[in-house]
């Protein structure tokens, strides 16, 4: 039977038994795909209390019905499992871009569910319907780049590979699973390592079927392309340009006259990218100068990115100086893939070893990123660098390391900004050398192990958002309570840009408020930057929209760094976007007609399931007080120069206020239909969405409110 969007097949791999089997995807259709289906499978099959590194844990690589269909920005792979760095090993998802999910769909699979543990290192080889578990003894111990090349040498050059490095092999909590040149999924590397699974190679020669006609599908694509902006759906260029009413120097729409991919042959000018010009969409976001400064222009070969995405937000650089350090000269990444490693040089990168000025910064950063990407070390959204600084500044290392180990670490390089410090740092971390390497356990575990106390959690410059041990990620600085509350609901850094792709559009605030009014019911949903107002129900709706859309995107999959399309760059549309596009693409691809509201409510159900699982793991229904609380610094007023408090909601302050945030929680719980006291899902909500079994299990465990 022909399936549309979905392939209809879930690949099941039992590494203990060495067996593979197939399940029917459509059994899980009501959970959409990707993350939604993964939550359901974990709920059904992995008991709360399982250790992330136990064979009973499962790791699920999820594509969704839109992967492989060509829908703009549909290349991400969702990975769901238990998270080693979380205090309670919370269920969480990581994501990697690149081409893996698309290839998986062309091979004929919607998801891969992996359980058990192989007796010795293996890799999973998927070639259409042929699936084999292969011996990985010669790959084990290799970095991620060589591992991918080895898999491709077996499977052919077209294979897409997901792999761990030495960090994942050694069960480092902060380790990644990577694919391609630059795409990382943070936090689950050790789960693969614990299963002795080194890599997954996929090659697919098949196709994804679309329910709609080819003509209609291409028309929908053309419509979406007409309203797409630049990275993070910023719709305003960074410099004044004739076609644009507005400009904003902080915009990621950096394309302009005289700005080149400087290392291309011949150099490619980004130019003034009129939003009606469909052949310059991929030139709008020259991300290298955005991430690394103006000096990066000459190193930029091109912009890259993920399958079926026209935006291209990964900077691909040629940095010849890297060869001096025994590294390959080509390095690529985006955003925190650069700034995470840069943060490890927590006193800055200065001139070193003949590298000066902006070159030193770029060469140094490139060393860090290359090592992190090869060893497969995660940064906990740049938190690892802040933890390093805290522990050095506060004498923690002096206290917890032996004198010998302390003396063996090249601190002088760190302090003087010599980026060759990275070689020592990443090797220690990836190979778990010494007590120092516990810096990569994750903030909660570091605090436990090294007795860091309340000061650590409440240090504003440390940016830890909750006692779950993860940092700010578009939190109170992003739409006041909207960002702040979004960040409270995950079991890791929130990885949520649903709100950013609107708040950060760079349109004038008045215009954004108008649009917010149309989407959320009132302009009050959106505060102007640093002009914050008290919590209101419209902000709560904005929070729900953001959480739900992130789950939806991780389920379809679509890139949450671009979607939803709340705005557009078109003056003739008054800059309005189209938030119903997800449902349009889903309906046309699968033939399952879902309205915007219906699809959102389905994603809300999936999000609620994640919530229910978290309750089972935390063994309390009172998520308000045990899970959803921030650390102290976000709710502490700033101080004026004379030491007096600057009250929250004073223009200029972005601090939150405790009771206001509690009200916010209540409002968000209400929007979801959860219990308003605890934030736990109620029986009536669960039954209304067909999750009676979830209600029953929670009730049996005494974890259902009321």
């Amino acid at each position, binding site marked *: 039977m022909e399936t549309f969007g979905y392939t209809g097949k879930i690949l099941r791999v039992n590494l203990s038994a060495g067996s593979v089997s197939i399940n029917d995807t459509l059994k899980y259709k009501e959970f959409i795909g990707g993350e939604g289906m993964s939550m359901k499978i974990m709920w059904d099959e992995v008991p709360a209390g399982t250790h992330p590194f136990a064979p009973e844990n499962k790791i699920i690589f999820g594509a969704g019905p839109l992967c492989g269909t060509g829908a703009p920005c549909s290349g991400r792979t969702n990975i769901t499992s238990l998270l080693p760095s979380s205090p309670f090993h919370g269920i969480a998802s990581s994501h990697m871009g690149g081409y893996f999910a698309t290839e998986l769909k062309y091979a004929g699979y919607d998801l891969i569910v992996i359980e058990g543990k192989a007796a010795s290192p293996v890799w999973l080889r998927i070639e259409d319907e042929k699936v084999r578990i292969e011996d990985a003894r010669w790959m084990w111990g290799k970095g991620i780049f060589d591992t991918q090349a080895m898999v491709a040498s077996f499977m052919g050059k077209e294979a897409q590979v997901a792999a761990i490095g030495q960090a994942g092999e050694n069960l480092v909590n902060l380790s990644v699973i990577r694919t391609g040149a630059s795409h990382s999924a943070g936090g689950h590397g050790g789960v693969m390592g614990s299963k002795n699974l080194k890599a997954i190679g996929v090659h697919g*020669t098949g196709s994804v079927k679309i329910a709609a006609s080819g003509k209609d599908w291409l028309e929908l694509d053309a419509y979406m392309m007409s309203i797409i902006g630049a990275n993070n759906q910023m719709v305003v260029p960074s410099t004044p340009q004739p076609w644009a009413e507005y400009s904003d120097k902080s915009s990621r729409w950096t394309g302009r006259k005289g700005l080149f991919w400087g290392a291309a042959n011949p150099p490619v000018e980004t130019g003034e990218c009129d939003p009606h010009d469909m052949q310059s969409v991929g030139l709008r976001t020259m991300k290298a100068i955005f991430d690394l400064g103006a000096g990066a222009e000459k190193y930029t070969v091109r912009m890259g990115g993920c399958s079926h995405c026209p935006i291209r937000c990964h900077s691909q650089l040629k940095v010849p100086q890297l060869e001096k350090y025994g590294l390959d000269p080509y390095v690529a990444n985006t955003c925190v893939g650069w700034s995470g490693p840069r943060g490890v040089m927590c006193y800055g990168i200065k001139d070193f070893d003949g590298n000066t000025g902006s070159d030193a910064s770029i060469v140094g950063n490139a060393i860090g990123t290359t090592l992190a990407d090869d060893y497969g070390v995660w940064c906990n959204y740049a938190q690892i660098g802040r933890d390093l600084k805290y522990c050095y500044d506060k004498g923690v290392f002096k206290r917890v390391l032996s004198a010998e180990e302390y003396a063996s670490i090249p601190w002088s390089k760190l302090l003087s900004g010599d980026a060759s410090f990275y070689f020592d740092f990443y090797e220690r971390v990836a190979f778990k050398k010494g007590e120092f390497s516990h810096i990569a356990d994750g903030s909660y575990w570091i605090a436990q192990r090294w007795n860091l106390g309340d000061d650590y959690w409440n240090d504003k410059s440390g940016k830890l958002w909750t006692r779950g041990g993860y940092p700010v990620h578009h939190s109170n600085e992003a739409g006041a309570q909207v960002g702040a509350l979004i960040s409270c609901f995950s079991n890791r850094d929130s990885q949520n840009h649903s709100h950013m792709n609107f708040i950060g559009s760079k349109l004038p605030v008045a215009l954004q408020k108008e649009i917010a009014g149309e989407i959320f019911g009132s302009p009050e949903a959106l505060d102007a930057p640093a002009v914050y107002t008290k919590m209101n129900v419209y902000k709560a709706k904005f929070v729900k929209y953001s959480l739900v859309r992130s789950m939806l995107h991780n389920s379809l999959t679509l890139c949450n760094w671009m979607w939803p399309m709340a705005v557009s760059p078109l003056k003739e549309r008054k800059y309005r976007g189209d938030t119903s596009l997800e449902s349009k693409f889903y309906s046309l691809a699968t033939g399952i007609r879902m309205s915007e509201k219906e699809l959102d409510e389905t994603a809300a159900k999936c999000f609620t399931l994640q919530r229910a699982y978290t309750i089972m793991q935390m063994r309390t229904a009172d998520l308000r007080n045990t899970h959803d609380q921030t650390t102290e610094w976000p709710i502490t007023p700033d101080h004026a120069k004379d030491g007096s408090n600057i009250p929250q909601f004073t223009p200029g302050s972005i601090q939150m206020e405790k009771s206001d945030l509690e009200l916010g929680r209540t409002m968000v719980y209400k929007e979801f239909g959860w219990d308003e006291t605890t934030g736990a899902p109620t029986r009536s909500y669960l039954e209304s969405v067909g999750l009676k079994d979830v209600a029953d299990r929670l009730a049996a465990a005494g974890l259902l409110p009321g």
Partner: protein
Amino acid sequence: MKDFPEKREGESWFEKPRSRRDFLKMAGGSIAGLLVTASLAGAGKWEDPEAKELRVWAIPSGVIVHDPSRCVGCKRCEFGCSTRNSGKVSAELSRIKVSRNLNYGVEGVTAAYAKADGQMGNFRIVAETCRQCEKPACGNACPMNAIYADAKTGARVIDAKRCVGCGKCVQACAWNLPTVDPETRKTSKCTSCEGDPTCVRLCPTGAIRYMDYKEAEKLLWGADANSGATVVSGATA
């Protein structure tokens, strides 16, 4: 009466030519000296003095050229092509081939991958596109006469009614560009989408152009025929 060139002694139809010279040898002639005017629609046959039968093909008006310096590996071209032309989305069925060279270039993975073409090396992406060859090896190899020059564009297109999916055209093509669809058991190849190529329209960086055939010749058949690096493209269509 045979419609395809004789195989010379010692040659195999299954050997992919290593150079354009090899390719021309296999095709049984050289490009120069075999020009025909566009007034010969479709293809005719004539006997050359060496008693070899050759089909005569009208020159296409345009041809697709891919620029590796601008390609960003998004694969929208593959999605657009396969959707428009096969009604389903696939890299394998796309008539413009990017996926096969995306990670490790045309040569494939070697120990020196880190500096070679491809995403895992120097980031250069070389797509393979149909050259709409003046003497198409695919067309001349087809035992069913299923490949002909489109009356409007001159693109070498496959008549699906005649095609039996034997794959001879795939093997004959120096780039193995035609693709047999295992679901339909028909072969497909680039038709230039009737003169308005979908890949060109969907490319977000203008890396793919539909050019006048004569202008494109030096880019497609130059000393470094795969590079396209001599193309200095404007940022807009």
